[in-house]
């Protein structure tokens, strides 16, 4: 960690007195270090989960595993982009989110390790799901930035209080764009390339409009709308941020809502009965 940016927090604070800058910088760096350690442990947990299954497999067969993998990628992306984009100010939000997701996973979603159902047992699944989860992590991070944009817009630019460390509106907007611009191609790859290839091998049609696919498509279109909005007069800033949050809502709805409420989705982790479907 370079001294000049190690404490992203310190960079963003503006200018408290020198001694306290020093302390803030030190604590910021300590916090980041702890986060890195936590992410490493999180990774170990994921790998262990995959190795606990017989045969060994990727840990994303059900909601529990998807949640712990998804929150891992949020944390990983945060750590990876921390220096480049000076994300220190996001620490409380991102870490609170990750901890909350892990709690939900452990308390409500926990399931014993089980082998994957047959149709899920494909290397296209690995590529498809890894990329979908990475994109989910990126969109979540981008959504947090967009949310902060909206909060900051309402509260105005302050130099005191908790919002003081949050970057300016223009930087938030650009930051959000850059994170989304990373997530969108990954999502495209997951949903429109590897997903259809896998679906084609498993179920014969590459695109079925099954509820999970419908929502993946909706998410894609909304994020395409977000990218457009940033180039459309009258839609920049606030409306674009709202679209980013709408995209995130559709993404999470797909993950939570469709898994639990849709019986016809072939993707339903809640009822993993892919090949056993009643012929219609």
């Amino acid at each position, binding site marked *: 960690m370079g001294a000049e940016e190690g404490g992203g927090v310190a960079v963003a604070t503006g200018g408290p007195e020198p001694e306290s800058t020093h302390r803030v910088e030190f604590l910021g760096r300590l916090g980041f270090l702890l986060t890195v350690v936590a992410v490493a442990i999180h990774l170990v947990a994921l790998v262990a989960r995959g190795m606990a299954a017989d045969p060994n497999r990727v840990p994303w067969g059900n909601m529990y595993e998807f949640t712990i993998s998804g929150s891992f990628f949020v944390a990983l992306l945060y750590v990876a982009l921390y220096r480049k984009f000076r994300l220190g100010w996001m620490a409380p939000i991102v870490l609170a989110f990750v901890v909350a997701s892990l709690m939900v996973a452990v308390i409500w979603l926990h399931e014993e390790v*089980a082998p994957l159902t047959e*149709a899920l047992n494909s290397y296209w699944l690995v590529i498809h799901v890894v990329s979908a989860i990475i994109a989910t992590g990126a969109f979540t991070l981008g959504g947090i930035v967009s949310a902060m944009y909206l909060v900051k817009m309402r509260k105005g630019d302050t130099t005191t209080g908790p919002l003081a460390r949050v970057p300016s509106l223009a930087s938030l907007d650009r930051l959000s764009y850059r994170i989304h611009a990373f997530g*969108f191609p990954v999502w495209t790859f997951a949903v429109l390339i590897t997903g259809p290839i896998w679906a*084609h091998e498993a179920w014969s049609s*590459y695109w079925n*409009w099954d509820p999970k696919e419908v929502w993946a498509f909706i998410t894609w279109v909304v994020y395409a709308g977000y990218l457009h909005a*940033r180039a*459309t007069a009258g839609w920049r800033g606030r409306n674009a941020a709202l679209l980013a949050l709408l995209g995130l809502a559709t993404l999470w709805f797909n993950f939570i809502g469709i898994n639990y409420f849709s019986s016809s989705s072939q993707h339903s982790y809640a009822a993993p009965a892919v090949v056993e479907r009643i012929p219609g």
Partner: protein
Amino acid sequence: MSIDTEERRAGELTAREMLRWTWRQLTSMRTALVLLLLLALAAVPGSVIPQESVDSLGVTRWKEQHPKLTPIYERLDLFSVFDSAWFSAIYILLMVSLVGCFVPRILVYWRGLRAQPPAAPRHLTRLPDHATYTTDDQVAEHLEHARAVLRGRGYRLRDDPGEAVSAERGYLREAGNLVFHVSVLIVLVGFAVGGLFGYKGGVILVEGSTFSNSLTQYDDFAPGSLFRAEQMEPFSFTVDEFDVDWLESGPRAGMAQSFNAGLRYQESPDSAEKNYDLRVNHPLSIGDTEIFLIGHGYAPVVTVRDGNGDIAYSGPTVFLPQDASFLSFGVIKASSAQPEKIGLEGLFYPTYLMVDGDPVTVMGDDKNPTLSMLVYTGDLGVDSGTPQSVYILDKSNAEQVEGPDGKPFRVDIQPGQTVKLPDGLGSIEFEGVKPWTRIQVSQTPGKEVALAGVVLALIGLLGSLFIRPRRVWVKARREGEGTMVEVAALDRSGNGEMMEILEEIVAELRRTERA
């Protein structure tokens, strides 16, 4: 464009102006955005209302539960949203808008390709991202440095040797943008070709039975609207055996794993026989057709003897699994039975067990296969002339057979057993169980086009999102002892942190100056 239309009232527009105005509106960014959001919104009903193409059973059930709404929903095509006129209207408008937007852009780009970077503005310090410094170099010398530095960073230079350097890079961003949008069209074409010329058919085959690829052999068949029967390839195959592994322990105990259907197939009637292990995720390709294993279940082999002791029905009957436990439902219709027709309807338990007085199946493997069926006689509706599903027994005019105790007579039977029906109706013999597989056969022309389209779209997208189109200008003039240099940079996409780039460039300019 809106200025001259606002000055006059709408009635004063000529038809031509009106047309041009409409076209401009349609091809504007704002319209594209609104249409995109509309498209997303329009897809929502397709996920909440059961769709004919995904879950036709669900559609039937939904219609039964909502008799009042059904006609309205049918009117609005809500059971086939993605084929509906209104959904198509949105994406066709979007495509028209896209073509209208991008044809001019492509032309502009083409012309701009060979154009020079624009000359430096008069006052560089008026641009938002700029820097100034002084150097000991001579003006011409330093500008030559600047040229070399910028060329080294991949900038294209304007060739006007003078007081300024004008440089531009990132031309490929717009190319990426164009490729992306054109590829969206390509994907749509590929998708449409599949929908129009392709077909998808399903058939349930009991182990040991043979399928040859002709329309009459399918249980269900969904052709595209331009599909022609000549497209069907003349292959045939036999499902020699079907194996499943059942998990006996762990949280998914009772579930099936490693499905394998041993196929023997011929690509055409006079080609050699080959074997293929058809598994999930491993389809068999024959020519342009692909064959998939997508389901399995049980077919109890039952022989029905009628009141005269003659065989009225014999063979495996496909029962449909109701859930992952493979508790299966089916009917047997012995309509040639004399003197009375015999109909059976009931459940098949692969591993039957009585738990607290209720029959259950503990797993999907057929470890303790048991049939439990109610018996009907009389008019089974088979002579009514209307085609009937083999999975449904029409009981509306039938009579339920009762036992001596006056309660409905139930046949509970295991392989090898025979049960005599009351009133001398006949007997039922359960001989054994055979597995069946559900095979899907499909042709999806255009899938390579669609795939190429999305891959191209992704490449274009990467270019469009990550290539930063930038212009950099450097101006130098003699001031007193040294040379005063002004540098300005402009990110044309408006998304980059230009100050960083500018600092980098300035640092490099000054480093070479010092060296």
